[in-house]
């Protein structure tokens, strides 16, 4: 019976705790942040979410938004959909005015709810590219370059690297075989037709750790002139090693945004193994930004050491980008309400749509969100692995913007 009592006691403590759910207090603006720190994408989440928290902390230490503190409510959902739905309902209950969605299936499941509840949600790097259409999805904001924009930018970059002539060249597209991996294919085909280059797709089946055959094919048989690499998780690291093994120069390959983190380079065996590899970023990589120094100074003034998550600059800075755009939207909403903290989701949505040329010292692209374009322009910047870090090789750029915009409007 003793065991029974222990069990019952544990259960009742947990049940009691579960009922202790608070709500927003006065003068406080709540934002909901979904995260994955324990699931399949934890290599991203553990760096991205601290970036978000740190930026909000910095803003709050500088007086918040018109004197109102912003409270971040984070819920980890392990990349599973039902906990993600529960997290959303919790955010709604707490009175969140923005929800930062984490995960493609979550974005799809939450899209109808966001519209019903009139709460804007952001999905940087997740969800479908068609969501950039603000007229069709008024409450969903991709806020960063979608896979279509990335695909178009990759082709533009390849063209530049091939000396301005892409006609007749062989471009290989190596991708993780899931919906996200296949998403850029339509635009790549469209551009291949338009620019008259040869495009061949090479699928890597999940979990993406075995790609000998595909890489050999690209390097030895197909002899691609340029490679576009759209892989996730462990796959980018493996691909770097495989291409090197087959004697294919990494300087003839550009990785999409999820093949572009420090952890991907470390997984391949460190910076020395990936020299020359081009990567695409939707937030600046590296740590030479004023805002990062401010965060370091804030921690120093508290007598604490710099958060270790900052070392993974790519994902950390992306979290920062999300937070910065969120807070800018809230700031716009608060301003529109004459400084009141009683802002609704719709106010914040309008706040998002007023964001224009907000770069935060170069860590963000020149984001401009409009009623029609919720992607913010679809900017990316190409970096290259040089020495012991990422070095920018282009300015903020985009490719074939007219083609992307047309596809977004058509919605497929």
């Amino acid at each position: 019976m003793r065991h029974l009592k222990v069990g019952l006691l544990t259960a009742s403590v947990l049940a009691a705790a579960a009922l202790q759910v608070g709500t927003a207090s006065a003068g406080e603006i709540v934002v909901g942040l979904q995260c994955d720190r324990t699931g399949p994408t934890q290599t991203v989440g553990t760096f991205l979410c601290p970036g978000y928290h740190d930026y909000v902390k910095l803003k709050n230490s500088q007086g918040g938004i018109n004197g109102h503190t912003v409270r971040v409510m984070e819920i980890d959902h392990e990349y599973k959909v039902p906990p993600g739905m529960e997290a959303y309902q919790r955010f709604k209950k707490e009175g969140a005015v923005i929800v930062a969605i984490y995960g493609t299936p979550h974005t799809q499941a939450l899209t109808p709810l966001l519209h019903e509840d009139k709460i804007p949600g952001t999905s940087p790097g997740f969800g479908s590219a068609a969501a950039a259409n603000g007229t069709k999805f008024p409450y969903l904001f991709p806020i960063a370059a979608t896979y279509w924009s990335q695909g178009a930018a990759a082709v533009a970059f390849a063209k530049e690297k091939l000396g301005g002539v892409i006609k007749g060249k062989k471009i290989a597209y190596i991708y993780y075989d899931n919906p996200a991996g296949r998403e850029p294919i339509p635009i790549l085909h469209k551009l291949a037709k338009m620019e008259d280059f040869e495009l061949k797709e090479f699928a890597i089946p999940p979990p993406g750790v075995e790609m000998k055959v595909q890489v050999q094919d690209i390097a030895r048989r197909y002899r691609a002139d340029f490679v576009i690499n759209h892989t996730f998780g462990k796959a980018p690291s493996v691909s770097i090693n495989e291409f090197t093994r087959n004697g294919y120069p990494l300087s003839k390959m550009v990785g999409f945004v999820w093949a572009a983190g420090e952890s991907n380079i470390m997984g391949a065996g460190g910076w020395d193994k990936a020299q020359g590899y081009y990567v695409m970023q939707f937030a600046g990589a590296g740590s030479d930004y004023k805002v990062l120094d401010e965060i370091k100074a804030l921690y120093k003034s508290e007598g604490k050491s710099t958060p270790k998550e900052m070392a993974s600059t790519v994902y950390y800075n992306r979290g920062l980008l999300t937070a910065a755009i969120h807070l800018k939207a809230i700031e716009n909403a608060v301003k529109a309400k004459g400084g009141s903290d009683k802002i609704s989701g719709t106010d914040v949505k309008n706040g998002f749509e007023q964001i224009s040329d907000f770069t935060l010292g170069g860590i963000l692209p020149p984001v401009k969100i409009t009623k029609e374009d919720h992607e913010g322009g679809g900017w990316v910047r190409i970096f290259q692995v040089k020495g012991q870090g990422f070095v920018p090789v282009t300015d903020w750029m985009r490719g074939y913007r007219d083609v992307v915009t047309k596809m977004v409007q058509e919605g497929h």
Partner: protein
Amino acid sequence: MFHRESGYYKTTYKADMALFRLPIGKVAIGAIAVIFFVIFPLIFDEYYLSIVNIAAIAVIGALGLNILLGYTGQISIGHAAFMSVGAYTAANMAVHFDWPFWLTVPAGGCMAALIGVFVGMPSLRVKGLYLAIATLAAQFIIEWVLNHTPVISGGIQASIPMPRPVIFGETLETQAELYFFILPVTAVAIIATLNLVRSRIGRAFIAIRDQDIAAEIIGINVYRYKLLAFAISSFYAGVCGVMYTYYFGIANYEAFQLPISIDYLAMVIIGGLGSVLGSIFGAVFVTLLPIAIRTFMETVGVFFVDGVYLAQVIAQMRLILFGGLIILFLVVEPDGLAKLWQNIRNYFRIWPFSY
């Protein structure tokens, strides 16, 4: 004269087959129905109802797996794949043919049952771990097919937006409305399972689980019943998948991958194999525990960890506590939560005596 029962004894076959073994059962069921259908919607807000909704959907899936694993003794690691079959069937029917939910729900279940029978065929020849691998193969094959067949899965994103269910011209959108859509289906699933396991079919399942050779000798067609178990189990999974699809508003195979199959296995094992109540307990436990732990850590954690690290600590502690509590509960009672509940009842039945 004041007297108490000293236990619960069955003297007839009829008593053994009874749905309510004690008269109090009828009262209890009535009370539970009133609590769930009247009191909960009145006192709970949207957030709590959303948790009940998620748990109620999980109960359907867990019941299905328990019929297969707990009652028939056939292991399946492809349960989530059957859910995706139901999900895509219903989504296609609803989108292309405008079918209402009362057609899509059984249609999704039937399609899953059909595929389930096919996948269950190896069970005629292999058992235990071998069957586990065969069903694992089904999980991967179904995922692959959905991923690569735009005709079924609706294009490159492999996802189909699902219209909200409509009853009498009323579109169900809020959590409270969905609650009254999901809960009756769960109730029907529970009642159907209770009746199934006390019937001839259920007893055949149990006979096969306990000793399949003996079952064959007493005249049970083992092949037929094994496939039937797969069909029924997959039907439940399919219905569960359809309910998820209505709830999420989208059919997407990424919500039904291998880890979800493992989650459902965890539900029935923690809840109690071969017990309807166990499936319910297991599903509710696995759904609620992470939420409870998180809320607990949010309340208590602030005293130990500060600021931005709290989120990280909560996420990690949730995993540790979740694992730890599962071990604790299984050490306390290896037969799962259903047995634990039984122990509590037995204790109070004869209280204040110890036996």
